[in-house]
């Protein structure tokens, strides 16, 4: 047990530079509405200009990685909902795919389509939360009402599909045990009909709004080299013009069959990242449309023939082998092969990677969650240096953080 070495965390009120110049040090947060949760930023101010910003995180740290080491592979899925509670299905997907890669399972085609469908719905829902709260921070107070109205429809779709709205826990190792109902498909179709007009409304409200442009254009510019240096992913990287979308660069599931485009920014400022995310919502709609059109109407949704997945319910009732498999699966789980895997998916916020080291038992030896917003948040001091105090809320919002995901 080594004692923690304390840095200079104590906050002084003022710092005298001589010649009548003073730097003021203030705390922003941890209880501040525009930090999107519980984050504290220690701001050093020269007048209204930010000299230095030091984000202090960890207020929502629950030790998810430690918990993952004591839970069996299939027991950990509910925890992934709670890391990023705004896009729970995407988090499920990232973890499930990593376990499947470790065990060498491939989900059936139809299950992959349903996964992509739900992942893209979740991406839109996450972007809607981001757009509403980001605009709310900057001062467009009505946006949050419109975006949350649309998000409500997506949560209804999740509820219809899996029974839960926020912490969905919908993905399973090997596929799904419940199929996509016709009512869910109808709801998605209805959403696809109304959502383009809604997006157009958002853009009409914001795109040419002089206040929005004044608050976002030229603010928080990240150059492409800096974006790579800081390891940014997602819209933060693509807003700077670097073409890295994991769905295109390293396609997983059936994304290689989908026809969609990756929007790129040119300036790398807050406005570009806004445009990139709005366009991503449109592209996600295209993917949902193609999924509905291409999805096989029949076929298995759960990979069977494997020790790693839970046997289907009807064979559990009919055959002795599957009843035994089911019993063992429930009581002690499965032993994953020895080895280590890293699997990344394109989360709504960037690259969500899970790294599992397995020692051949039924729990991971080490489970690392590489959350996109933890790495993306690092760039905040770089962006904030020299910016105005009022811009700091725009800079926090543009990274798109969820503190549950940052702190894990």
């Amino acid at each position, binding site marked *: *047990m*080594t*004692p*923690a*070495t*304390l*840095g200079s*965390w104590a906050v002084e009120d003022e710092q005298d530079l001589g010649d009548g110049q003073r730097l003021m040090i203030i705390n922003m947060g941890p209880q501040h509405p525009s930090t999107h949760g519980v984050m504290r930023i220690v701001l050093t101010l020269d007048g209204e200009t930010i000299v230095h910003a030091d984000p202090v995180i*960890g207020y929502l*740290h629950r*030790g998810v*990685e*430690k918990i993952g080491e*004591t839970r069996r592979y299939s027991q950990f899925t509910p925890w992934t909902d709670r890391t990023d509670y705004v896009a729970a299905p995407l988090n499920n997907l990232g973890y499930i795919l990593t376990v499947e*890669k470790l065990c*060498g*399972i*491939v989900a*059936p*085609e139809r299950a*992959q389509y349903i996964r992509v469908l739900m992942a893209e719905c979740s991406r839109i829902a996450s972007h809607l939360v981001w757009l509403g709260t980001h605009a709310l921070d900057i001062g467009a107070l009505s946006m949050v009402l419109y975006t949350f109205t649309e998000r409500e429809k997506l949560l209804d779709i999740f509820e219809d599909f899996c029974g839960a709205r926020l912490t969905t826990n919908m993905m399973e190792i090997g596929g799904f045990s419940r199929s996509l109902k016709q009512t869910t498909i109808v709801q998605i179709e209805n959403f696809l009909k109304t959502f383009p007009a809604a997006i157009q409304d958002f853009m009409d409200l914001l795109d040419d709004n002089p206040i929005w442009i004044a608050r976002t254009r030229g603010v928080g510019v990240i150059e492409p080299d*800096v974006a*790579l*240096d*800081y*390891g940014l992913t997602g819209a933060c990287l693509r807003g700077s013009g670097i*073409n*890295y979308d994991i769905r295109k660069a*390293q*396609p997983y599931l059936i994304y290689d069959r989908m026809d969609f485009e990756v929007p790129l920014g040119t300036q790398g400022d807050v406005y570009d990242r806004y445009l990139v995310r709005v366009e991503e919502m449109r592209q996600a709609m295209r993917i949902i449309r193609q999924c509905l059109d291409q999805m*096989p109407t029949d*076929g*298995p949704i759960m*990979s069977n*023939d*494997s*020790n790693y997945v839970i046997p289907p319910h009807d064979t559990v009732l009919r055959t002795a082998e599957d009843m*035994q*498999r089911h019993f*063992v699966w429930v009581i*002690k789980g499965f*032993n994953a*092969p*020895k*080895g*280590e*895997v*890293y699997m990344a998916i394109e989360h709504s916020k960037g690259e969500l*990677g899970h*790294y599992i*080291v397995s*020692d051949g038992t039924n729990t991971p*030896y*080490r489970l*690392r969650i*590489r959350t996109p917003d*933890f*790495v993306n948040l*690092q760039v905040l001091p770089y962006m904030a240096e020299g910016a105005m105090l009022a811009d700091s809320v725009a800079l926090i919002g543009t990274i798109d953080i969820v503190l549950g995901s940052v702190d*894990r």
Partner: protein
Amino acid sequence: MADDQAPAGAETPESGLDLLAGARLVEPAHDMTGIAKINSVWVTSGYWGPLSEEMHPAIVALRAAFPDEVEQVVFFRDEVTLIVKAQKLIEMCLLLRDDPELSYRMLTDLTAVDMLRMRSAPRFDVVVTLYSVKNRQRLRLKTAIDEQQACPSLTAVWSAANWLERECYDMFGITFAGHPDLRRMLLAEDWDEGHPLRKDYPMRGYKPYVEPGFEEGAAPRIKDFRRL
């Protein structure tokens, strides 16, 4: 069905202690009849580069420039892991970043694994995952660090290493030599209970949780009934 057995091909290697020694043997051994053949990600190659020590450009370049540093190359599930020595980690990373052919310009992840239950020494593995936007390839470097040993800091190579190394220090107590600002990342600044992701750290901490305000002789609220 024998669920308590490991799947075929995943037997423990003879040497026992090293995690990845037998990793090459593991093949997916499942009957996929009845399931549509899918162009799966990890079956298609090219994501971690060619799966051969002679063909992979990063392995060739590192072997040429640092003949004694690369100890072992592991391929598992089409992933490439280089087990390297810690002494010249910064130089190796600079080569990987700046070589125009390799251009691993993005540090995706930096983390550590406490190998306490895997081997006797050294204690930790520091795991660095890189990505090359140009070649669309990933690469993983692993280096073993003992408890008293300091790992070279990669902050000079990638700015992204700053917080990731701070988190490593916070969670494992690994010191990074040359890090500009090594302090707690996620835990409280006055945390005095050590580093929670170490394997010898109990699941519920060293101290029983006491409701604030009831420190005087109050019983702990939650009994420590879980394992670990």
